[in-house]
């Protein structure tokens, strides 16, 4: 059943199915109902990473190195975790600048340098050739092995005539399909939705095929994982393979470098860049891909070791290449259908890689290598051709065929000398050279065009010398002595032990040297020379991509003159009239104008718009050249670009300041609101105060008025009665006077308008004088007053009259609340650290603890209400205010029935000279 025609027919049927899927997806995309606008399709398309290398080669590697095949899959898994930082930025930059390929990205970043784009393209093409040859080798050998069924042997070396070589025909067929997939028409954004759909489908097929073999080997041939690994563990050679980092499974250095290498490969392989960046429809798809893709990697690796061990156990002596185990195991078990499925799976893996890779490379060759050169050749008069789309498509188709032919050539030249994995790693090492320029380019504004060029060239040169040339040498294209003794016998320059660095495997050795050369040159040269104007602005656009808004970001750097018809003609020439018309209409609509009726201004914005549209078709470097041909741009100097950038950053600064101001305003508003609330509260307090005062004034007034009226109306009242009423009138009049005075006093104290006459006060003297002044009061109530005043008290600083007022108030209160004849009042002075303390103690009715603070409030009195008429309810409040003004405090200690002790402190003069120097 597995005859040549059957296999070939099945293969074509399968490719036809892929094409049908692609065609359907393209139609759907044109209808605006994309089938690939899904994170699952996006994640599956990323699995184009798994090529024939994975499909056949992993098992081959595992059969030699055991778990040593793993770093290639650990790397991408680790990298996915970093994608949120790295890939999201690359995606955003690419969308804003309409990047069409990896080369376009790097060229664009470093000042839209056509030279750089060309270098990247050349490196990519040369670097990827081994990888493409690997796919061709995989397809052709798997075909050859399959059609020998039921025999199991390695195919003979390729026919010397390429017409009889399967690989050549495979290359040609793939070229045809790639042209059909990728270059049927020109898309301004380089989207190939049909291709992506087909790739996603292929990813499913290869996964299913590999899992099918894995399950068959593990559970069909053997008795599950336990049985398989159990048998392997018995064989010492196989057991050693299961231990990482030791012996056959590779050293730490190898693991680390392979992991790093594959981390970079998942980003910078042209096909990975194509599917993950260029074909990405929605940044949000990343979120799911970040865990879906590693899951795919896990699934396709689960059965690698079982198949490898199964192959070694079953076919170890058959002289078969371990790379073929995936295919030969089902064949050995006479599972024809499974073998065919495996072949289709391998075909999927290989074609998927080849199609995407060559499309990506052909875009680069066309946009970044040939077009810039052709457009510069005045002789060709390309600028004057009305429609260049045909030329662009032609170049791309030619490039696809050329790349595949080159891949085939490499296969013929060096393919037989290496296992699949080793071939692939050479390509990985090549694309890893893009890493410094790429990563530096998006995170470091200091990276310059020269730096990038030098870094790339240096890294690539080392790669050529340490990886490509040895590969050719091993195939006999260079003398073997080149490897053994170094070029011209110079030991130090031995390609595999450069400068005497031995003991590393070839890839680790090459990576180490190439990265040192690459990064060293990139950073060194970048730092050595300042970037040009164009580089400056591109660096800013790329590194600050999350700070720029929309595509207009680039327009602020353009200055010059252009005309709308010229720009339109230019756009139409490269994208077709319909596309150009559509683009202009979109541009006009976004500005609320009609195209073509309304007059659009051919300003910087339009020029920039046309340039980005063109960049989608031609790449940034070519687009720049083209736009420059119709728009007369004034050359911006570095200084001018710096200034524009500075202005932009000033805008940022202004906006920060504005935010700051707005925050300050908010704060001020809040403060005002608080102040208003305080004022309202004060106003209410004032109203309360006025109402309280008025109430307090009305009570004595009532007595005065009523008793005077009574006296007036009743002349017949007896003398005793009259005299009693007159005493009340006099007493209430005095109270009224006191009340008015104290209210005024309080209002002065509260408004801060009180006059203070500050002097040094001898408290001892003051107390004695006050006692003398109030002695009449004590005699009237027959209350005893004693004083306890120590010698040599320090002076205090204060207003003599005010402090006298406080003591008089306390003494008269004490008298008031003491029982006549039994009352005892004592005034005592004492010294506390920094303060002088005055205590006025009585043996009167006392004050309940809950009233200790109340007594100091306005118009509040505690204790016996019978005595109220004698007070104003302001004395203690005023006293406390006076004491506090001088920095002291006043309080009361008392219990009902046990008398009260009012105390206050005043700061000593020595400590308060400074504080009191400027009286309030």
């Amino acid at each position, binding site marked *: 059943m597995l005859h040549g025609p059957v296999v070939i027919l099945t293969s074509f049927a399968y490719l036809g199915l892929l094409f049908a899927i692609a065609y359907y997806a393209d139609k759907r995309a044109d209808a605006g109902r994309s089938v690939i606008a899904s994170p699952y399709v996006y994640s599956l398309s990323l699995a184009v990473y798994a090529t024939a290398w994975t499909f056949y080669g992993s098992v081959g590697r595992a059969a030699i190195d055991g778990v040593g095949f793993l770093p290639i899959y650990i790397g991408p898994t680790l990298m996915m975790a970093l994608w949120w930082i790295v890939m999201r930025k690359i995606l955003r930059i690419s969308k804003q600048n309409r990047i069409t390929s990896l080369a376009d990205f790097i060229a664009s970043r470093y000042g839209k340098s056509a030279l750089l784009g060309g270098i990247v393209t050349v490196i990519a093409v040369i670097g990827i050739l081994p990888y493409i040859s690997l796919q061709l080798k995989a397809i052709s050998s798997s075909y050859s092995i399959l059609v020998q069924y039921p025999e199991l042997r390695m195919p003979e070396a390729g026919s010397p005539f390429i017409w009889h070589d399967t690989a050549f025909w495979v290359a040609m067929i793939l070229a045809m399909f790639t042209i059909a997939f990728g270059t049927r028409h020109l898309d301004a954004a380089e989207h190939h939705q049909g291709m992506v759909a087909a790739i996603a489908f292929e990813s499913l097929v290869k996964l299913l095929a590999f899992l099918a073999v894995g399950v068959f080997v593990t559970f069909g041939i053997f008795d599950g994982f336990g049985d398989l690994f159990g048998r392997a563990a018995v064989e010492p050679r196989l057991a050693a393979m299961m231990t990482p980092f030791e012996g056959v499974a590779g050293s730490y250095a190898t693991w680390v470098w392979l992991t790093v290498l594959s981390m970079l490969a998942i980003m910078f392989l042209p096909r990975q860049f194509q599917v993950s960046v260029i074909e990405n429809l929605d940044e949000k798809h990343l979120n799911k891909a970040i865990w879906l893709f590693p899951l795919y990697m896990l699934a396709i690796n689960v059965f690698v070791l079982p198949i490898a061990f199964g192959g070694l156990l079953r076919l170890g002596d058959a002289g078969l290449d371990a790379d073929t185990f995936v295919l030969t195991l089902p064949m050995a078990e006479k599972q024809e259908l499974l073998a065919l499925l495996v072949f289709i799976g391998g075909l999927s893996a290989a074609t998927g890689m080849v199609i995407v890779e060559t499309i990506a490379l052909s875009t680069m060759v066309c946009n970044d290598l040939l077009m810039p050169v052709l457009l510069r050749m005045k002789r060709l008069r390309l600028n004057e051709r009305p429609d260049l789309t045909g030329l662009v498509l032609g170049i791309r188709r030619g490039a696809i065929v050329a790349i595949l032919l080159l891949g085939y050539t490499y296969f013929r030249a060096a393919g037989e000398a290496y296992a699949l994995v080793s071939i692939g790693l050479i390509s990985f090492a090549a694309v890893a050279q893009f890493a410094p320029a790429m990563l530096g380019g998006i995170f470091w504004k200091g990276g310059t065009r020269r730096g990038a060029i030098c870094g790339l060239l240096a890294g690539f040169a080392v790669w050529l010398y340490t990886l490509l040339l040895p590969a050719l040498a091993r195939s006999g294209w260079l003398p073997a002595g080149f490897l053994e003794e170094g070029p011209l016998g110079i030991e130090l320059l031995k390609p595999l032990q450069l400068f005497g660095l031995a003991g590393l495997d070839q890839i680790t050795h090459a990576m180490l040297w190439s990265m040192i050369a690459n990064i060293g040159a990139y950073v060194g040269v970048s730092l050595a020379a300042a970037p040009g104007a164009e580089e400056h602005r591109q660096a800013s656009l790329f590194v600050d991509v999350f700070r720029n808004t929309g595509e207009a970001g680039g327009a602020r750097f353009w200055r010059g003159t252009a005309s709308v018809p010229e720009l339109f003609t230019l756009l139409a020439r490269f994208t077709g009239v319909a596309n150009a018309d559509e683009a202009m209409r979109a541009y006009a609509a976004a500005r609320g104008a009609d195209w073509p009726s309304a007059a659009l201004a051919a300003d910087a914005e339009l020029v920039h718009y046309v340039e980005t549209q063109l960049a989608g078709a031609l790449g940034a470097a070519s687009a720049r050249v083209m736009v420059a041909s119709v728009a007369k741009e004034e050359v911006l100097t570095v200084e001018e670009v710096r200034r524009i950038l500075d202005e932009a950053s000033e805008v940022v600064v202004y906006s920060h300041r504005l935010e700051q101001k707005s925050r300050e305003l908010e704060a001020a508003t809040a403060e005002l609101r608080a102040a208003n609330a305080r004022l309202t509260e004060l106003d209410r307090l004032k109203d309360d105060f006025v109402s309280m005062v008025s109430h307090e004034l009305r009570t004595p007034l*009532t007595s005065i008025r009523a008793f005077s*009226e009574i006296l007036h109306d009743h002349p017949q009242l007896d003398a005793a009665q009259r005299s009693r009423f007159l005493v009340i009138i006099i007493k209430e009049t005095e109270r009224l006077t006191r009340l008015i005075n104290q209210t005024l006093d309080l209002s002065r104290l509260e408004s801060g308008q009180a006059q203070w006459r500050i002097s040094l006060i001898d408290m001892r003297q003051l107390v004695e004088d006050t006692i003398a002044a109030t002695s009449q009061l004590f005699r009237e109530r027959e209350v005893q007053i004693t004083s306890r005043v120590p010698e040599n008290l320090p002076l205090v600083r204060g207003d003599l009259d005010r402090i006298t007022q406080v003591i008089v108030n306390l003494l008269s209160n004490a008298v008031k609340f003491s029982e006549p004849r039994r009352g005892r009042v004592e005034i005592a002075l004492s010294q506390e650290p920094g303060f002088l303390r005055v205590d006025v103690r009585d043996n009167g009715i006392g004050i309940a603890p809950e009233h200790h603070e109340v007594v100091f409030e306005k118009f509040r009195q505690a204790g016996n209400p019978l005595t*109220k008429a004698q007070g104003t309810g302001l004395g203690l409040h005023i006293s406390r205010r006076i004491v506090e003004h001088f920095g002291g405090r006043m309080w009361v200690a008392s219990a009902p029935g046990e008398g009260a002790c009012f105390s206050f402190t005043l700061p000593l003069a020595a400590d308060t000279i400074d504080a009191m120097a400027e009286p309030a």
Partner: protein
Amino acid sequence: MSAAEASIAYVVDDDESIRTLWQWLMESRGYPVRTFASASEFIAGYRDEGAACLVLDLNLPDMSGLELQRYLSAQGVEIPIVFVTAHGDVPAAVAALKSGAVDFIEKPFNYRLAVQVVERAFELDRQNRSARARQTDLEARLALLTEREREVMDRVIEGKANKIIAAELDISIKTVEAHRAKGMEKLGVSSVAELVQTMLQRRKGFP
């Protein structure tokens, strides 16, 4: 004005002079006066001694005049209250009037007008007391009626003729007449008109 019918003035004010004033004002007119310096003193010292009036300062140290008013009302003490307010207490005075105060006097007041306000309150209290007494009397009389007499009297008040009442209660007209006469006697009324008036007054409740 004889001492026997003299109403009592209760004065609650924390100001000694004001209390002295009220003391003299009321005593010189023959009214007994009880003065208190605070609400709690009043609550402790008050007992019902006949017609009276409470002169209450709104602004007291321990319990405000309004609080005392609420307290008395909750305790079922029915005494007319005259509030004494200072300027600025008008809202409080309005609140006091709404919750049943008789009047209020604003400081500083004309002593004659103040006395007049208190005397009006005395008069009101006298009326209230006699109305309450009549009410109590009527209740007592109603309680004397037998059930049958009650049924008959209810229908008499509704204006029904003896004949109809007899038919409704299924008794003879003579019996109805007997119950009616007995009932009228017990309620102390001599005519149907008087009976209806008395009962209506009861239904309206205390004025």
